[in-house]
């Protein structure tokens, strides 16, 4: 248990260290990222103000302390480009991403487990091989390819779904806000689910195959329990327990996979924001986003582990 916590702490420190050192390694003056070669010419006074705001003229140890102190306060910095605190910019975008990823995760996990169970139990049926093949193909394809395909077919050619955004720009009647959100979310959701579901299914299938004919299953059958009950309470549960933490890790993969998908669909989530920030070299925003996402992933993992300990009675007594 302690070792787990230490592990998370190590990761956190590593990421913080990265966040602090990387921008200092940058060649050139971060302020020119704003002035660059754009239509505007910044006056020297304005540059000085920017320099003071980002504390670029202080000695290094002071900058480290300042960095840590601001993080403690919850201040993730100020975005060069958006003229607003990073946290404020990340907020709404992160909500959209959590909505998308959360629903994708639930759907792909639930459906994936069900599919995996069936694939394992009915492995002699003819359709199993085809479905396995499809799963393998889908799992290996990058999200942005699948997304682009869906965008072309359903948005461009068939006109069923919108091309960008998360909700209708023109709020029409009340009650259509939800429908608008659903509609905009449909294709990115489908893309992410198609990417994650096969992996879950294959994982479940592998676990199931190991215990399909385990003694406790035979015992349950002998007691005359119904097949569905056996399937889920006995087989699936025991097959999945060892995989619980690995399932939890997949949330991280999903979150990372959402970045290119959001770009394809111009979905205004944290992934799209990161892409824009990368384009504009908005370093405070890049760092803030990555820090927050990694924290989200760590939190998810910790939750998964804690859930595993709770769910598996064999571990409950252990510290």
């Amino acid at each position, binding site marked *: 248990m302690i070792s787990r916590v230490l592990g998370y702490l190590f990761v956190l420190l590593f990421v913080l260290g990265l966040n602090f050192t990387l921008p200092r390694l940058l*060649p*050139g*003056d*971060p302020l*020119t*990222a*704003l002035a*660059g*070669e*754009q*239509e*505007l*010419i*910044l*006056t020297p006074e304005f540059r000085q*103000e920017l320099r003071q705001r980002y504390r670029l003229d202080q000695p290094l140890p002071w900058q480290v302390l300042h960095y840590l102190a601001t993080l403690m306060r919850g201040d993730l910095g100020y975005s060069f*480009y*958006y*003229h*607003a605190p990073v946290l404020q*910019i990340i907020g*709404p*975008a992160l909500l*959209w991403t959590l909505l998308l990823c959360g629903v994708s995760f639930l759907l792909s996990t639930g*459906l994936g487990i*069900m*599919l995996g*169970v*069936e*694939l394992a139990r009915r492995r002699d049926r003819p*359709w199993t091989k085809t479905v396995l093949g499809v799963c393998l193909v889908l799992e290996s394809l990058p999200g942005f390819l699948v997304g682009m395909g869906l965008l072309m077919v*359903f*948005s*461009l050619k068939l*006109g*069923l*779904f*919108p*091309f*960008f*955004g998360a909700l*209708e*720009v*023109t709020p029409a*009647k009340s*009650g*259509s806000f939800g*429908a608008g959100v659903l*509609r905009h979310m*449909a294709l990115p*959701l489908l893309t992410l689910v198609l990417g994650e579901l096969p992996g879950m299914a294959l994982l479940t299938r592998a676990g199931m195959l190991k215990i399909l004919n385990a003694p406790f299953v035979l015992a349950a059958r002998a007691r005359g329990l119904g097949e569905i009950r056996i399937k889920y309470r006995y087989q699936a549960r025991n097959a999945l327990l060892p995989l619980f933490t690995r399932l939890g890790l997949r949330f991280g993969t999903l979150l990372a996979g959402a970045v290119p998908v959001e*770009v394809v*669909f*111009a979905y*205004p*989530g944290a992934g*799209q*924001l990161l892409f*824009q920030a990368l384009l504009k*070299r908005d370093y405070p925003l890049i760092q803030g986003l990555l820090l927050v996402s990694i924290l989200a992933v760590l939190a998810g993992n910790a939750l998964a582990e804690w859930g595993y300990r709770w769910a598996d009675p064999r571990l409950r007594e252990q510290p």
Partner: protein
Amino acid sequence: MGKKFLLLAGFLLVQAGLSPPSLWPQEAPPQTYIIGDPQGDWGFPSPMSHNPRGPGYLRVSFLFDTLIWKDAHGFVPALARRWEYRPAPPTYTFHLHPSAVWHDGKPLTASDVAFTIDYLKRHPHPWVDVRPIRQVEVAGPHTVRLVLDRPYAPFLEEIAGTMFILPRHIWQDIQDPARFQEPRATVGSGPYKLAEYRRELGLYRFVAFEQYYRGKPVVPELSFVHVGNELLALKGKAVQAAAIPPEAASELKALGFTVASQPHFWCLKLLFNHGRFPMQELAFRRAVARAVDLRDLVSQTVRGHGLPASPGLLPPDSPWYHPPATQYLFDPRASRELLASLGYRPTPEGWERHGQTLDLELLTVPGYARVAEYLKKSLQEIGLRVRLRQVDYTVLDQRVKAQNFDLALSGHGGLGGDPKIINDVVAGPFAAEFLGGYRLPPELARLLTDQLLTLDVAQRRQLVARIQEWLARELPTLPLYFPTQYIAHDGRVPWFFTHGGIAKGIPLYFNKLALLPPGNSLSSP
């Protein structure tokens, strides 16, 4: 069983796509006009926190008015109904519109103007430099006098035509203007009010301000929104206007869209490092100018979507353009002669002088790689060895400023507005950045100062023409071309090309005057 669930899930998703039409607006109702933008967010739309680049300013311009504005022909009244100028001391008197009100209903008065100037002196804004104003006198509720310390020709465009007037009753206690991002900060005197701003969507939703002093805008709702792919959005009618890549122009025109090219206010230049030999020699710079066929460069590298540049820097689209007599026609032989005149000897490896072969490094950002390669090829034709180096633009800027380069490709805009821009890029603190350390000859320096003081337009035009002639002769940098950018819209709104660009010279198409009831565009007195 699992299969059934999968089918069900799929079915549900398709259902989400096929809900009843009442929840399914396929096209925006005719009341709304949506403009698509590939970048999305341009900052919170208040005068003190918008993104310092053009599109940021543009969005605020719908919410806030300035003293005067511009239409297709020149200056027109805005908050000031009329204005006068008195030369001694240089004073501009503005008579404000008596029916101008703020979005919250309070009347706009001269004290708001006085407050704005005072506030900008205390909180500098990247766009408006109010230092030339020495004193502000409020001569009545709707009359304000601005006294300058010396004649300042760019005043009308750069200050009166760009400075957003702030409501005193809202801003007087704000200490940190950039972080003031509450809804109150968007209360202005412009034709639209802010209805919704969502940063992550790049969404700016404006609704018409009924009590606007020039009449209620014709389009009830105007929105800017981020689009991933502008062509998809236009074709799918999700937006009504957007900037488009040049290749799409003909297809969109065929589909019935109105396609217009934006004025050429941005220039790509070849910078020379004036601290090193031979770049500091005029003969060398002229040799390079003659070695490059600008017309061919445009046709090869930007597919013809650009204008070969004038050596005088200003584009033909600028009202101050004057074609310089000195032109550099493509003549590789003359190039070679010029190089030889510097003491270089042609050898199979390149040009040699004092036992060393001339070998130069050309810095570029990945975006202009093609131009750099074309230049390299052209210079190779006259036997000049050039190495290309692609760097990030922050690195390029840094190296140019530190004068640690030979040649570099860099560009900037603002070339359509007041010719003060020439002063900004040729003299002053930015000369190193934009000119590679060129030292101004005293006569050119004098011309530049004079042009700021000359208020008579005809006289000033002559001065600016002479400045362009000087630049063409001296060639501190080699302007290469002005890229052409296109915009497409469905023709519902009569957008027009603002004379000299919006405000200080923003080459964007969306001037709010196009949305007002007709009969509003009256040129200046």
